[in-house]
């Protein structure tokens, strides 16, 4: 999992059938310097643009969070973080 920030959404009508009804968010890793390396995460926590979120990196965890049997996904937003803090 990593701490991400939601910067946008993706609209995709023509997609794999198991992805039907899943909201797609654009997130980037907050603790990485390169902010342009964005990924797509399926929303499982009701996050919106601008939220700090907890994002899985393994598809198995993502499917468990969404309860979808065989959706081809890698990342899922499984939590909304109030304030991420890095000490060093």
């Amino acid at each position: 999992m990593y701490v991400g920030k939601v910067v946008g959404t993706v609209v995709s009508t023509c997609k794999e059938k198991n992805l039907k009804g899943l909201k797609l968010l654009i997130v980037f890793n907050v603790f990485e310097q390169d902010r342009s390396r964005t990924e797509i995460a399926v929303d499982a926590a009701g996050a919106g643009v601008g939220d700090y979120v907890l994002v899985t990196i393994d598809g198995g965890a993502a499917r468990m969070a969404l309860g979808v049997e065989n959706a081809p996904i890698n990342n899922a937003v499984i939590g909304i973080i109030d304030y991420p803090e890095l000490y060093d």
Partner: protein
Amino acid sequence: MFFGRVAGTVVAARKDVHLEGKKLMVVARADHNGNRTGGMLVAVDYVQAGYGDFVYLAKSKDAGFPVPERNAPIDAGIVGIIDHTTVVGEQVDACM
């Protein structure tokens, strides 16, 4: 999942038996605006994407989930074609 632009196709007569009937496409990695950021890969196409389409892909074993038999050697798959992305501050239309 990550963004990509379809850059070409791959025709392979001799390949793994599980890849039979699967369309293989060359995809260049892209950012959320659709601009290529380099890095080409071959992915199985599940959504009939065409050349130049702004798509998103699943990687590793999750890309093999749309295929019924679980032991297909697929580690990247095009799972959707993007109509448009809305990034904070600017709306980006995919067909540009």
